[in-house]
C-alpha cells in the first residue's frame, strides 16, 4: 500500500518556530524562552478555549464537546461504564486469557501502561487547581466526569484495537490516526476524505500535546516542586529551570534516542510503587481525620450546587471539575487508545471494557483522594494563588506528614518522567503518521521533544498550563467527531460479544475455570 504523508510541510513550520527563539547562551534564559513562546502559547489557547456565555459564565466549547460526547456514549451503550465493570475486572485478572497466548501483551499490561501515561501530575497538581478555583464542590463534578469519561475510553480503546496496524515484522501500532482514517474509509467513500483530514488533524494536535501536557507541563511542575522543597525562592535551583530541563532531557534522551530501555523499565516498575505510596499516604491522612470526612463530603456536595464566592457560580464550579478531570484522565482525547491498542486479543471490545478502569482509577479513586486530603487538611483556601498547582497539594500532605513533600517530590519527578516517556511514544506515533517512518523523522521528533523539556522547565506556569491544556484538548475535536461516525461499529462489536458472554460462549481458562 502506498502511504501518503501529508505533513511534510509542517516540519518547516516547526523549524521556523524554533529559529524564532533567542539564543540560549545568556543570562535570564528562563525569561527569554518564556517571552519568545508566550504569544504563541496564548494565541493557541485562545482558539482552543474559545467560549460562549451560558447564564453569564464563559463556557469553553471544548468542555461541552467532551461532556456531551461522554453522556451520549454512556446512553448509547446503555451504561456500559457500570454494566461491564465486573467483566472488565475478570479480563484484567486474566480469567479469559488463553495460556497458549502467554507471552503476548495482556489486558493488565496494556491497562498498566496506559495508566502510567495518565496517572501523574493531573492527579496531584490539576486537582489542586480545580479545588482552588472551584472550591470543594469541583470534586463532585470531577468524579461525575470521571464516571462518564469511562464510556468515552471504552469507545476509543475498542476502536484503537479494531483498526490498529499490524506490521509484517510483528510490531503493532494503533490509535485515533488509524481508526479515523481506516474506520471512516470503511463506512463510505464520502467519509474517506473526512477520515483522512481528521486523522491528520489529530496527529498534528497529538504532536503538540506531546510537547505540551505530555512534556512541558510535566517538566515545569516537577521543577516547581523541586524548587519548593529545596527552599522556595531562596533555593539555589530557583532560577535554574534550564539546568533541570537539560538534566531531565538528557535522561529522557538516553531512553528514547539512546535506546537505554533499562531506565524506562526501572521507571515503569517504580512508578506503580510511587502511586501506591501516594494513595496510601492520602488514605492514611483521610483515616487519621476520619471525623472530618463527613464535613468534607458535605462541603463537596453542597459546594457542587451552591457556589458562593466562586467565580462563575455553579457553572464555574462544574467546569473547573470537568476540566481537570478531562485533563487528568484524557477521556475523549484519544491518547490512551494508542497505548491500549498493543494488547493481544481477537475481540477488540474486550480492551474497551478494560479501559473503563483507566478513568476510574485515575479520577474516581486517585483524584478524589487528593481532593479529600486538600479539603480535610484545610489547605484549600479560595484566596490561594491558583497557579500554585502541585505546591498546594504538597502543603496539604505536609500539614499531616511533615516529611511527605520529599516523597511527593520523588513521586512527582518519577510520574513526570514516565508520563514523558509515554507521551514521547504517542507523539512519535502521530509524527511518523504524518511524516513517515524513517531514521531522520524519528530523530528530528525526539530532538524536538527533548528541546521542549528544557523550554517547559524554564517557562512560567501560566503560559505552560495554557499551552498544554490547549494542545491536549484540541485532540478531542477530530477524535470525537470521527468517533460519532464509528459508533455503529462499536455497537455491533459490543452486541456480538455481550451475547456470547451472556450465553456462556466465551471460554474461561485455568484457575478461573476451576473456580467457576
Amino acid at each position: 500500500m502506498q502511504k501518503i504523508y501529508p505533513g511534510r510541510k509542517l516540519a518547516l513550520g516547526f523549524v521556523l518556530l524554533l529559529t524564532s527563539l533567542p539564543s540560549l547562551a545568556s543570562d535570564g534564559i528562563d525569561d527569554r524562552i518564556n517571552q519568545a513562546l508566550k504569544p504563541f502559547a496564548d494565541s493557541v489557547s485562545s482558539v482552543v478555549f474559545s467560549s460562549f456565555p451560558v447564564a453569564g459564565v464563559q463556557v469553553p466549547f471544548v468542555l461541552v464537546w467532551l461532556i456531551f460526547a461522554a453522556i451520549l456514549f454512556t446512553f448509547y451503550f446503555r451504561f456500559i461504564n457500570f454494566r461491564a465493570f465486573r467483566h472488565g475486572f475478570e479480563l484484567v485478572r486474566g480469567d479469559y486469557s488463553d495460556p497458549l497466548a502467554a507471552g503476548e501483551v495482556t489486558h493488565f499490561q496494556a491497562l498498566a501502561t496506559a495508566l502510567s501515561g495518565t496517572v501523574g501530575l493531573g492527579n496531584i497538581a490539576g486537582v489542586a487547581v480545580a479545588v482552588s478555583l472551584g472550591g470543594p464542590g469541583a470534586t463532585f463534578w470531577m468524579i461525575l466526569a470521571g464516571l462518564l469519561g469511562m464510556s468515552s475510553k471504552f469507545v476509543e480503546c475498542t476502536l484503537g484495537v479494531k483498526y490498529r496496524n499490524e506490521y509484517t515484522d510483528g510490531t503493532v501500532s494503533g490509535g485515533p490516526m488509524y481508526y479515523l482514517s481506516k474506520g471512516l474509509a470503511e463506512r463510505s467513500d464520502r467519509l474517506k476524505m473526512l477520515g483522512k483530514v481528521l486523522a491528520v488533524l489529530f496527529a498534528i494536535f497529538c504532536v503538540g500535546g506531546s510537547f505540551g501536557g505530555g512534556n512541558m507541563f510535566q517538566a515545569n511542575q516537577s521543577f516547581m516542586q523541586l524548587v519548593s522543597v529545596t527552599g522556595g525562592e531562596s533555593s539555589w535551583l530557583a532560577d535554574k529551570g534550564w539546568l533541570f530541563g537539560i538534566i531531565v532531557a538528557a535522561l529522557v534522551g538516553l531512553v528514547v534516542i539512546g535506546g537505554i530501555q533499562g531506565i524506562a523499565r526501572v521507571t515503569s516498575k517504580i512508578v506503580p510503587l510511587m502511586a501506591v505510596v501516594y494513595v496510601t499516604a492520602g488514605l492514611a491522612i483521610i483515616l487519621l481525620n476520619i471525623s472530618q470526612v463527613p464535613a468534607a463530603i458535605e462541603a463537596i456536595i453542597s459546594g457542587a450546587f451552591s457556589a458562593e464566592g466562586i467565580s462563575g457560580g455553579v457553572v464555574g464550579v462544574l467546569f473547573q471539575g470537568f476540566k481537570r478531570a478531562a485533563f487528568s484522565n484524557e477521556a475523549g482525547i484519544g491518547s490512551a487508545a494508542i497505548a491500549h491498542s498493543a494488547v493481544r486479543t481477537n475481540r477488540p471490545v474486550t480492551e474497551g471494557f478494560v479501559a473503563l478502569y483507566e478513568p476510574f482509577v485515575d479520577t474516581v479513586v486517585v483524584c478524589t483522594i487528593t481532593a479529600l486530603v486538600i479539603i480535610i487538611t484545610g489547605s484549600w483556601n479560595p484566596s490561594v494563588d491558583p497557579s500554585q498547582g502541585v505546591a498546594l497539594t504538597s502543603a496539604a500532605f505536609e500539614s499531616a506528614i511533615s516529611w511527605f513533600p520529599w516523597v511527593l517530590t520523588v513521586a512527582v519527578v518519577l510520574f513526570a518522567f514516565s508520563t514523558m516517556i509515554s507521551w514521547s511514544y504517542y507523539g512519535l506515533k502521530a509524527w511518523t503518521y504524518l511524516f513517515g517512518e524513517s531514521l531522520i523523522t524519528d530523530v528530528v521528533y525526539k530532538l524536538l521533544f527533548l528541546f521542549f523539556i528544557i523550554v517547559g522547565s524554564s517557562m512560567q506556569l501560566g503560559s505552560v498550563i495554557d499551552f498544554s491544556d490547549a494542545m491536549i484538548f484540541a485532540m478531542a475535536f477530530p477524535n470525537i467527531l470521527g468517533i460519532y461516525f464509528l459508533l455503529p461499529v462499536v455497537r455491533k462489536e459490543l452486541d456480538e460479544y455481550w451475547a456470547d458472554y451472556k450465553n456462556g460462549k466465551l471460554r474461561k481458562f485455568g484457575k478461573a475455570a476451576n473456580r467457576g
Partner: protein
Amino acid sequence: MSKLLLVGVDCSECSERALKYAANRAGSSKAQLVVVHVIDWSPFSFNTPQENAERHKRRETELDRAHKEIVDPLVSELREQGLFARGVIRHGHPAETLSAVADEFGATNIIIGKTGSSRIKTQLFGSVANTLVQVSNLPVTVVP
C-alpha cells in the same frame, strides 16, 4: 496405561543430569518424554508503550531461540537414544507453568534438576523446585 514423564529444562548444560535421569527411567519403563522449557514471564508486569508494541515480535524471537538453543537439541538427543520425546516451550511462571503443562499432557511424573543456588538466594527468591513441589498435583522428582 503408558507413562509420560515431563522434564523441566532450564538450559542445555544445567539440565543434563535431570535429562539423563529421565532418559534412564524412560528407557527402563518404556515411558514417553516431554521436554518443557518455561520462559519466565508475568501477565502482570509493567511495561513501556514501546515494549508493548514490540512484544509480539520479541515473543517470537524468544520462542525461536529457546527452540534452537535449548529444547530442540535435547529432544533430538533423546530421540537418537531411541526414546519417544517431544518439546514444549511456554511463557509464564516457571513452577506453575510446568505443573499446568504436566496436567495438560497427562504426565505421570515431573522431573527437574536442582539449580544449586545458595541458601540465601533460595530464601530470598525461592526456587523453582521448591515451588513446584508445593503446586504440583503429581509426584515431583528433583535430580541433584
